[in-house]
């Protein structure tokens, strides 16, 4: 942890920028690369001002080619650099998917440790901002399913900076998904100095005794709101923010469940094969005898993410989350 008490009040996207800035200052092996990350400062301003400060060789506007970005970043990473590649939107990451899953994820294993891939791939992800087609998907399960990748999804500005610094320092490839719905939704105190938030540790955002609710990213907010409403009705909700979806902090997940015996999972990704299924299976494996109700999964539907006139119906709303939690409690 940082010694300094100095903090800034930042939005989540400003915390991304601050994390990049801090680590680029600390370590000149760190380069930022991607589409429009340079002079434009990123379409969400996540790299604003970095190009002015660090120049063309460290903040690199690449040609429009995701496979090119990921693949060359892998090459750079193997040769001792610390590339942070931005994918403009996670929905456009698929051309890079082959490079990420076939190569970044397996390089250490394939070369028996000779080559490693200390790479971070950042992408704004998720829905809720009235964006056009293909800009709102939530496909973290693809990456979590791939051995050899770590998958981080922060929900607060403080965690964002700390987790990003950890990701850059991590000796393995990290997929860093930034919930763009909350890029500017609120501010939080962020230390000016560098600090790490460890990858692989969940945070208990709210303690409770009746039901455990597992969530992450942008869905943490409607979950907390629903918990407030339920509190008024005398239901005590514990909210666990995973922060890292792979590796998943199963210890914290199970510990919470052993206390409450009831659970709900909230994510905006489609229900089938989503991380809710992984959490549910974990509870079944590790805490079956504590289980007093079926685990509720409050998730996106198994349909392509709709155009924005319908997106509010697709995304778990406070009312939907509240109802789901109630089902788990009242079973």
């Amino acid at each position: 942890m940082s010694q300094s008490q100095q903090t800034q009040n930042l939005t989540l996207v400003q915390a991304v920028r601050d994390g990049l800035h801090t680590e680029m200052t600390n370590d000149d092996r760190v380069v930022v690369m991607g589409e429009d990350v340079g002079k434009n400062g990123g379409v969400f301003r996540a790299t604003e001002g970095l190009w002015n400060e660090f120049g063309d060789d460290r903040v690199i506007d690449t040609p429009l080619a995701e496979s090119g970005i990921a693949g060359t970043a892998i090459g750079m990473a193997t040769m001792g650099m610390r590339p942070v590649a931005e994918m403009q939107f996670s929905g456009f990451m698929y051309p890079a998917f082959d490079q990420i899953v076939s190569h970044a994820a397996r390089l250490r294993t394939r070369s028996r440790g000779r080559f490693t891939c200390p790479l971070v791939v950042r992408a704004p992800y998720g829905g809720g901002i009235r964006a056009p087609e293909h800009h709102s998907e939530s496909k973290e399960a693809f990456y979590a399913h791939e051995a050899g990748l770590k998958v981080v999804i922060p929900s607060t500005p403080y965690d964002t900076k700390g987790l990003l610094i950890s990701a850059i320092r991590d000796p393995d490839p990290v997929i860093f998904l930034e919930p763009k719905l909350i890029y500017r939704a609120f501010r939080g105190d962020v230390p000016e100095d560098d600090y790490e938030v460890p990858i692989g540790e969940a945070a208990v955002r709210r303690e409770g005794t009746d039901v455990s609710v597992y969530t992450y990213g942008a869905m943490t907010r409607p979950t907390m709101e629903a918990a407030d409403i339920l509190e008024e009705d005398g239901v005590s909700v514990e909210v666990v923010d995973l922060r890292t979806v792979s590796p998943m902090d199963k210890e914290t997940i199970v510990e919470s469940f052993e206390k409450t015996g009831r659970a709900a999972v909230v994510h905006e990704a489609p229900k089938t094969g989503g991380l809710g299924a992984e959490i549910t299976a974990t509870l079944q494996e590790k805490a079956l005898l504590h289980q007093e109700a079926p685990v509720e999964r409050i998730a996106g539907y198994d349909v392509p993410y709709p155009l924005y006139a319908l997106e509010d119906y697709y995304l778990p709303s406070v009312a939907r989350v509240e109802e789901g939690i109630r089902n788990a409690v009242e079973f």
Partner: protein
Amino acid sequence: MSVLQRDPQDMLRVLDEGGEPVGEVPDLSDDELVTMYREMYLARHFDTRAVSLQRQGRMGTYPPLSGQEGAQIGSAFALDEEDWLFPSYREHGAALHRGLPLKRTLLYWMGHEKGNRIPDDVNMFPVAVPIATQVLHATGAAWAKKLQDEDAAVMCYFGDGATSEGDFHEGLNFAGVFDTPNVFFCNNNQWAISVPRERQTASATIAQKATAYGFEGVQVDGMDPLAVYAATRAAVEKAKNPEEGERRPTLIEAVQYRFGAHTTADDPTVYRDTDEVEEWKKKDPIPRLEKFLRNTGRLDDETVEAIESSVKDEVAEAIEAAESEPRPEPSEMFSDVFAEQTPEIRAQAEAFAEMYERHGDEGFLRE
């Protein structure tokens, strides 16, 4: 000799910036030429209105096209009825020429699924938002036409940025290898969001890339609708009826400029000089064609006024129609995922409907 047989660095022009002919005027009737002008004018007016709807919060993010009317309408004009069009996300003008109602385009950018439904009698694919992906679809579609012995060319639009993606190279490579009836039309508007053309490729022209795939590439002045028409028409004809030893596909690089932002979510002043915009405005395709048509006695004040007012009415009607479209039913989300709804999707749709019944819009809509 075909206009396509030229050095890819030699830019084809028919009208100069003042609308004076400097090349061979293509064989189009007076009516067709005036229609071309009208459609360009319509595309410009539509674009201006669409940007303002977005600013007023009546529409979501929208990609403007102003400056690109000559390339869009000039090229679409060269297609025959049976030909197909694979657009990017900015070809509202070309789509309009093919018969896609303006209302559909508006609905799409207003976030309605309905806007993506291309009427059955319009040979056109839905908008492609992921860059360059449509290039491969267009190659496959043209390949199908060839295998099915159908005489149809397939037009595919994309930007200069798209030429960096693997899909672009794979699409052109397949087209060359399988000699498919494709016209690849690159709208080189100088910028891919904030990244200038020079950051996409170190080759002198985009047109010359065709050489590597074994077919012709030609550079045209994209703000000269008649040059665009001439090149595209030759490419369409060659796609369907190649001469002995000719390859069917062609890559056309239309050199042009987009006057406005990349999309309404973008601020070009961060990366683009206003002087640059002013320079390109001198090449504006609309006054250029207008001057030519006036000088040759095909257009006068009266016709221009009539066009202006009919265009305004047409766009106003389309906006009115799009805005009176009711909010889509939430259940639409669950339809058309598969030919037949799977049990899981049906269960999710039912659960949703029950919940909707209980909560109404209040339980879902934010803001």
